[in-house]
Structures are given as structure tokens and as C-alpha cells.
């Protein structure tokens, strides 16, 4: 306890320290001028899911998703909707015909990414998604969701390297297995 008005003076000192300090101390100058400069989001940062494909020339055939619907059942808010693609005879084609994610429901929990056995679905880090409309603009369909592996490698370098190495090893293993078996076509095994 001190003299009358000490609290006021102390408050002034703190304010002055912060004001003057902001000219010298970077840590006191915190404002990020958002549209011009951005906070560097860390690699782990996540917003909404997207689907990875491998070949830029042929995104549809090289997407990793096999429409196994694991993410659809595990998604806590049930915002994923998948219909498997079938050929004329009704045989499943191991890829989705419809893959919708309702971003207006998605809670960005990353559980779809964790449960996916094929490393097909990953989290984006784009947050500028304000739209005027709700249904047409916020429900993402297959064309909006497909993004290349290079893009994934660009936004999450560390994680992507691990995934790429893992997939490559798997592919080699499969090739080795397939070679002695002969003409047997490789089947998409569920792990």
C-alpha cells in the first residue's frame, strides 16, 4: 500500500511501458496487418479436408480415395457424403462418384484424416472461405475437393514426406508380392 493515487500511477506506468516498448520491443508490437501481411500458420494448422490425387494429368483416375466410406461413418458431425462409382454392370469401381463435404457443418476435427487407411484425405490450411450463399457455395463437391499431391507437399512438407515414403514402400511391397503371383490383378485390400 502506498499513497493515494498510486494505483493510477502504476497503471500509467504499465501503459507507458507498453506504448514506448512497442517502438523497441518486437514482442510488444503484436498487430498483424492482416490482408497485407499474414500470420505464418504452422504446418500442423488445419481447416477443411481435401482429397489427394497423384498425377496432375489425370486427377480422376489417380485419386487415392477408394470410396471405402470409413471417413463417412467416423465423421462425428456426419458432414461427408460418399457414393461409390459403379460401371455399367454395377461393379464397384473403387472410387467415389459423389464426394460431398458440407463445410458449413464440418468441425475441423481431423478424425477423417486419422482414420483414412489410404492417406487419401488431408487437411487444408486455407481459411479465407467467407461466402454470400450457403448451399451452393459452402458444400464442396468432388471437383472442388481434389487437390494434387504437390499442393499437399507444399502446405505440409514434413508430413507429406513421411506419407510419400510410406506409400512408396507399400507400392514396392505390393509389386513384389504381385510379381510371383503372376497375372492376378492387385485388389484393393482394406486394412
Amino acid at each position: 500500500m502506498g499513497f493515494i493515487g498510486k494505483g493510477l500511477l502504476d497503471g500509467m506506468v504499465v501503459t507507458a511501458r507498453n506504448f514506448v516498448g512497442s517502438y523497441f520491443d518486437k514482442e510488444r508490437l503484436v498487430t498483424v496487418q492482416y490482408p497485407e501481411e499474414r500470420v505464418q500458420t504452422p504446418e500442423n494448422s488445419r481447416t477443411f479436408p481435401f482429397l489427394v490425387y497423384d498425377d496432375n494429368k489425370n486427377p480422376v483416375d489417380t485419386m487415392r480415395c477408394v470410396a471405402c466410406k470409413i471417413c463417412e461413418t467416423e465423421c462425428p458431425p456426419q458432414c461427408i457424403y460418399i457414393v461409390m462409382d459403379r460401371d455399367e454392370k454395377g461393379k464397384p469401381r473403387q472410387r467415389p462418384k459423389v464426394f460431398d463435404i458440407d463445410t458449413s457443418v464440418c468441425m475441423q476435427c481431423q478424425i477423417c484424416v486419422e482414420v483414412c487407411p489410404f492417406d487419401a484425405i488431408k487437411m487444408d490450411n486455407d481459411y479465407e472461405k467467407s461466402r454470400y450463399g450457403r448451399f451452393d457455395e459452402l458444400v464442396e463437391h468432388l471437383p472442388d475437393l481434389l487437390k494434387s499431391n504437390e499442393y499437399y507437399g507444399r502446405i505440409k512438407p514434413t508430413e507429406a514426406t513421411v506419407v510419400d515414403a510410406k506409400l512408396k514402400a507399400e507400392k514396392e511391397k505390393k509389386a513384389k508380392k504381385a510379381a510371383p503371383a503372376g497375372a492376378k490383378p492387385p485388389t484393393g485390400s482394406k486394412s
Partner: protein
Amino acid sequence: MEAIEKIKEVAAQAVPGAKLEIINSTPAAQQPALLVDRDHIYAVAKFLKEDPRFQMDFCSCVTGVDYLQKADNPGFIEVVYHLYSVAQKHGPIILKVRAPRELDQCRVPSLTSLWRGAEFQEREAYDLYGVRFDSHPDLRRILMWDEFTDHPMRKDYVPPADYEWEPTPHHDTLERTVQVGGITPPTAREELEKARKK
């Protein structure tokens, strides 16, 4: 603190006529509970609170659980009290009391006069499960609005059909859409019919 068998023995001595039963928890959790009949729950709770061996002065958690009718038993609402002791720093002793599921018979004595901490939690159990706590000082709905007539946490509660349109419907939402006559994506309708055929 004593084992649950000992507590049961002591409580049975202290409150003559009380029907006590031990209910086991999951094997790993090791939190057996004491099931008390409705007429003696207050006396047993009062004993546990006042007996110097237990001194259960802190009623941590009160909640209801709805067990639906199964083949061998008619179903019941269970109210669970978790008691701890701040004075002796031990616990928990778990008390359970059961009441029939029918709304007019679903009554248990309130323990609010023993522990103020049970006041809001008992109101919540009344709101969500329809358990009437006799001699509760202020038994009103706490979470839902006053005009609401259902008890939504009961397992047989049917939510209102306010469904209209969803881009990614699933399971019961899909069923409800068809009932209400809302619009579903055509592919979703196909899937639903296929699932029904199975």
C-alpha cells in the same frame, strides 16, 4: 476408506430396513456402487454425511440414467450420486436409486436438503429425465424452456421433425426426410432404398 462391503454392512446397521445392494462398475474402473431403495435413500445419505467415519460432505455429481425395458426387467430410471469427503479427503461413495420409467411414478426423495450442490443437478435430472424429486425446494425446468413438455434425454424421446434439407444426410435423418416429405438428394434416396431391401 473401507471397502464397499463394509460400508454396506455399516449402513444397514445404521438404517434398519434399508435394502442395499452392491452394483459393480466396469472391471477396470473399480468403482462399485450402493443401490438403495427409494424409501431409505435419504436416511442412508444422511448417515453417510454425518457419520464421522465417512463424513461425505461433498456431493460431487448427480445424474440420471435411463435404462430401457429389456427381456427380463421392466426398465427404470436410475439416479446416481457421487459423494466425496472434503474433510477426510476420500471417496467416492456412489449411491444409486431407481424409479420406474412411467412419468407419474418416477419419483425419488430429493437430497438437496443435505447437500445444496444437488439443487441444480436434480433440476437438470428432472428436466432431462422427468424424475420428480420430492421435497425439492424449486423443481422447475432448468435447461429447456418452461413450455416444453418432453424429457429429451430419455432413450425413447422422438425429436421434433424440423428437418428440411441437408446436403449430406445420414441414417435416421434420411429416414425422417422421407417421412416428412422433404427433399433428398436423388442418390441418397437410392441408397436408402437399397439399405431397406437388405
